[in-house]
């Protein structure tokens, strides 16, 4: 993989943003579309040139000293997981531009410029191999998003934007403190390298040597940043508001990529820097994610605002994602990584669909609007399809990740022994999977409730409805072209997940092994649980 690709992927949208600002407003959209399409094409090139046999190694690496005194450097590089997330970002780029064609008619230059900046920042987050650089990109995503929500959102946009900004900013400041602590430990403590550096690999080697207590605190700090972003219960309340008020493209990016910054952060830094901490606290965090799954799912069920319903469903879905990660075994973590991609696709598509309806009816209230199947058959078909992807129907993408997260969570850390031929250690256990699994039922409840209202039933339209001047009753070719690639991907991932699983297998295995290797207590947990298992076998025999 050429070292030029990643810097270009970040710089190209920035360049595009500059072009948009300098050009005429009428051409802003075409420029933005061309740039994002070009970036997507480059993304395909990156996928093609990536050496998948070395999927766990960071490729396309570049490093330019930045502030040498502090050890900062502009270093980029991706493993297969980061690359897939970059690919997701690049895919959603042109889609978001295309989806804004008729929705954004004022201040278009500002809009597309910030959209492009946002894409650059998001790409940067996944590519960064320097902690400081990561953090800069991570924080920088806030500003474009803030602008997009506060200028182009609906009625309550100011409040939503401010809340989004302050909430996530506060979280990430604390995360910064945690990250800086690791840097400081590395620079000063006996087991560190003794010099200031923000290189993630170096910091990992140091961080794992911290005591369990230290790791716990660092993890807590990092989690406050990442969990807000995910969002994990109970720090999720910014999300329904922001999602609901954001313009369609904003919601798509928010659900598709921005939330994944949180889970990616957990994957990269919480598992990477504080294995002992996560091993120790996995249960508590898993409980939080399970609460999120069920709690947010039930809240979805009583929404009237269809966009809010989908927004809350993100909280519920991302709970599965975090749960899989906390299983700390390959199946769970791989499922979690797949979840990041799949949720981006299916929930992104749901927001697009809702946006298309909102453009035509200017309402998201399911009491005013419904029964669109007869009037908009194409839209309805897509809606049912993506709702099913979201509900986790096997054969579509959502199932792949959901079932793997649950299977991962199901495994407790009983160590392989006869007759437990299949046992693979994990940090959680059957009960976690069982309770989280009720989320599958709840998901069916709220998504079918939504379909029942919006798609099926008698046609309901707002009283003052008149047709959109520029849009046909049902979807036009542009809108179908936006949705089709996502639908095809959902189907492809659902039916042929193995190539993707093979692609992420190596880094996932490395991470899982890293965690178990560097959590000294892991052996103790395993031993304790093995004793428990053998006593239960003995008890089983004793019964007779």
């Amino acid at each position: 993989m050429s070292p030029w690709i990643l810097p270009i992927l970040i710089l190209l949208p920035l360049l595009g943003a500059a072009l948009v600002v300098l050009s005429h407003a009428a051409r802003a959209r075409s420029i933005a579309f061309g740039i994002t399409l070009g970036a997507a094409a480059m993304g395909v090139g990156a996928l093609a040139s990536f050496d998948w046999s070395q999927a766990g190694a960071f490729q396309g690496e570049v490093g330019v000293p930045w502030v040498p005194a502090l050890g900062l450097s502009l270093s980029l590089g991706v493993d297969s997981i980061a690359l897939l997330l970059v690919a997701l970002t690049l895919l959603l780029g042109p889609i978001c531009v295309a989806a804004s064609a008729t929705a954004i008619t004022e201040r278009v230059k500002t809009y597309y410029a910030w959209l492009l900046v946002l894409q650059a920042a998001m790409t940067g987050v996944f590519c960064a191999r320097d902690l400081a650089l990561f953090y800069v990109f991570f924080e920088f995503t806030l500003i474009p998003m803030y602008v997009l929500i506060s200028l182009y959102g609906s009625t309550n946009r100011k409040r939503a934007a401010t809340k989004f900004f302050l909430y996530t900013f506060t979280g990430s400041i604390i995360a910064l403190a945690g990250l800086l602590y690791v840097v400081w430990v590395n620079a000063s403590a006996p087991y560190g390298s003794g010099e200031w550096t923000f290189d993630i690999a170096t910091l990992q080697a140091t961080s794992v040597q911290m005591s369990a207590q230290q790791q716990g605190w660092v993890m807590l700090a990092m989690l406050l940043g990442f969990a807000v972003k995910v969002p994990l219960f109970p720090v999720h309340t910014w999300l329904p508001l922001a999602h609901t008020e954001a313009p369609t493209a904003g919601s798509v990016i928010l659900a598709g990529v921005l939330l994944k910054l949180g889970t990616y952060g957990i994957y990269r830094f919480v598992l990477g820097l504080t294995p002992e901490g996560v091993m120790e606290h996995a249960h508590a965090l898993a409980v939080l994610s399970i609460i999120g799954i069920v709690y947010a799912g039930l809240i979805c069920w009583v929404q009237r605002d269809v966009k809010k319903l989908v927004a809350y469903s993100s909280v519920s879905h991302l709970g599965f994602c975090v749960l899989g990660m906390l299983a700390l075994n390959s199946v769970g973590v791989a499922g979690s990584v797949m979840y990041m991609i799949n949720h981006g696709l299916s929930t992104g598509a749901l927001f697009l669909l809702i946006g298309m309806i909102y453009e035509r009816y200017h309402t998201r209230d399911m009491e005013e609007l419904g029964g669109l199947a007869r009037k908009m058959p194409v839209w309805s078909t897509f809606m049912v399809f993506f709702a099913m992807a979201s509900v986790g129907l096997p054969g579509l993408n959502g199932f792949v990740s959901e079932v793997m997260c649950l299977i991962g969570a199901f495994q407790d850390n009983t160590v392989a022994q006869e007759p437990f031929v299949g046992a693979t250690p994990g940090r959680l256990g059957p009960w976690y999977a069982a309770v989280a699994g009720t989320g599958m039922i709840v998901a069916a409840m709220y998504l079918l409730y939504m379909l029942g209202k919006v798609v099926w039933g008698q046609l309901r339209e707002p009283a003052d409805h008149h047709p959109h001047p520029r849009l046909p009753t049902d979807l036009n070719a542009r809108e179908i072209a936006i949705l089709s690639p996502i639908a095809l991907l959902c189907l492809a991932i659902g039916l042929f997940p193995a190539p993707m699983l093979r692609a992420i297998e190596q880094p996932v295995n490395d991470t899982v092994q890293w965690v178990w290797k560097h959590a000294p207590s892991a052996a103790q947990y395993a031993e304790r649980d093995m004793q428990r298992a053998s006593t239960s076998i003995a008890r089983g025999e004793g019964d007779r």
Partner: protein
Amino acid sequence: MHNLAGPLSQVASSADVGVPAQGPAWASLIVFLPLLACALCGVCAIVPAMRRTKLPAWITVALLGVSFVLTVLLYQDVSAGEHAKTVLVTSWEWFHLSWGDAPGQQFVASFGFYIDSLTVLWMLFVTGLATLIALYASEYMSHDVGLGYCRFFAAFSLFVFSMACLVMGDNLLLLYLGWEGVGLCSYLLIGYFYNEAGAVAAAKKAFIMNRIGDLGLALGIMLTFWHFGTIQYAELFPLVAPYVEALKAGDIGQIPLVVQAIPLLLMVGAFGKSAQLPLYVWLPDAMWGPTPVSALIHAATMVTAGVYLIARTYPLFAVSELALPIVAWVGTLTALLSATIAMAQFDIKRIMAYSTVSQLGYMFAGLGFLTSTGAAFHVFTHAFFKASLFLCCGAVMHGFAGQLDLRRLSGVSFMKGWGIVGIAMLIGCLNLAGFPLTAGFFSKDMILAEAFVTPGPGYALAGWILLVTAGLTAYYTFRVFFRVFVGPQHAEPGDEVHAHDGHDAHFHPHAPGWAINSVLAILAVASILAAGTYFIEKEQHGWVGKMVHGSTAAEIVVGEGEHAVRAAAFRHDLVGEHAIHGESHEPAGDHATPEEAGGSSIAHGSFLGMDPHAVMYYVSSLFGIAGILTAAYLHGPRGLFGLFIGSRTEAATSRADALVPALGPLVQWARHKWYVDELYDFLIVKPLWVLSHIFHLIDQLLIDGLVDLMGRLPSIGGRSIRPSQSGVLHGYAVGMASGLAFLLLLVWLLTL
């Protein structure tokens, strides 16, 4: 006297042979042709010229027909030779993740097919009936030619694809794909008439109820993976084999509790999909779907998926002490409960729906009574006669503008053009009622006999309940027949007059056309012929028995000849004793009663002191005929067609009306389905709904409120320290200096 040993035990031991061979690659076409049909129906929906024709129907019929022919070829391929073969056909790698080289350190599920005789048995009637019913639907759905027609046949084909994945999948996860896939198609088809609020609600209910079951299935799959490290049948069954051996040796202590828990979870899925207690309530509501859908999905195929699941994983169920007794009792109680409801309903389609639930109960009971053969046989016969019963109801509904109330229809058989419907209905009813020598009689009988043969927790009582239920079944079946199909001619149109003809108030019933009639005729013949399969391969309990015995669903048998005992963990004491002593017993005489037969006495229960196998034919005939006579007396018309004991002269009234007050509230309760729906609503749905609203409030007020409060803290704090913002310059300077000093101190301390 049935011979339990011989072929059974041979097959059981030959099932342990190593990895199955590769099968013919074309077998996967059986699965993918329906998918192709679905895609082509989608194309029809897009192309306007194709949308306006019946093309989707013909595409579906043709491709499903090819699928059926291929299944027949596959049957010949698999059943050629002494024993049925098991072959694998792999299409592609579906899931693959490995994290080590040791066994169990990978998560694999292929998109491949595991084909043994059980698979073929199921696929034969799935593809065969699907083809026929698609043909029927081509006429039945003809009012909807257009987008709806495309949608119908696309979902129909997708259903067959999903069902094929469910049945043919070579691992539990692919079974799960089919499992949820049929659920989706069921959802789409129940809600086909989406303008009706009832249809939408019924579709939603079906999907969610099924999801509850699916969770159990999913957890069962996870537990399987956790324990065995694989979910591929070809690897899984050899791993289960040692437990089966332990069971045969009577050494049940060898079987870990984890393994015993797997079937407890799997069965939850089976209860959901096959509409058993407590998850049965969705099936009657599923009748909102077009009738061909009810016939195929909600009577013949999808709802038997639960039976298939248990049959497929029968070794796992057998080694669990609790699983099969629970299955048996759930089946028994479901059979009774839904039969009582069916007796009090007026909507003939709903009566058929409840009877499906009830018959599924028999199948589950059969599995629990250790006769997977009986269960599979009942699935097989039921598929034909219940499909034909539904299609007859559909023909009536189609002809009389949606009329299904048995009080508003009478003497349909005698109307012009309705002869075939009437005869097909009669054959179906006789089968369902278990009239002697019909297919339904033989299959039901096999289950009933085993209830008394197999000693299990309360199995004799369960047997009596099922016998009584058989009588009730005969009653409610012929209640429909006597009311609707014979007697004075009378017909009121249903409420679909407008939808059909455009110009309202002008109702003329139209008799079914060639498609409906020919399908009904074929099904009627098939349901008669299904009885014949009982006499092929008699020593293996019929052709279906042979198919079952060549598969993983075979009963596990210990001992030989008269001493043969069907082994299961819940009777491990017997099995253990038998395994030790069985060989030494003297062979008992052919005509010896169980009590005299020594060794067999522990194996065989009795029916009022007689051998159940010998007398059950007569006993169940007695109950069946009693039911029919009761129906004839209460609902039959005057004369020959009321068996000379009926007296009904009008459509709406019968002798049964006089009984209603006498039975008091019972009738009302049964008519209201024992208020189970209301109970669920009160106990589960409403509380959950309230809870959700509470959560929503908590989220908005408490959690978000706290956040907002914290957000305001800085400004509150700002207000309280406002005096410090005095605007006096030296104040700021002091502040800055002290801040800097603090920072320096901090850095110095930290870098110390």
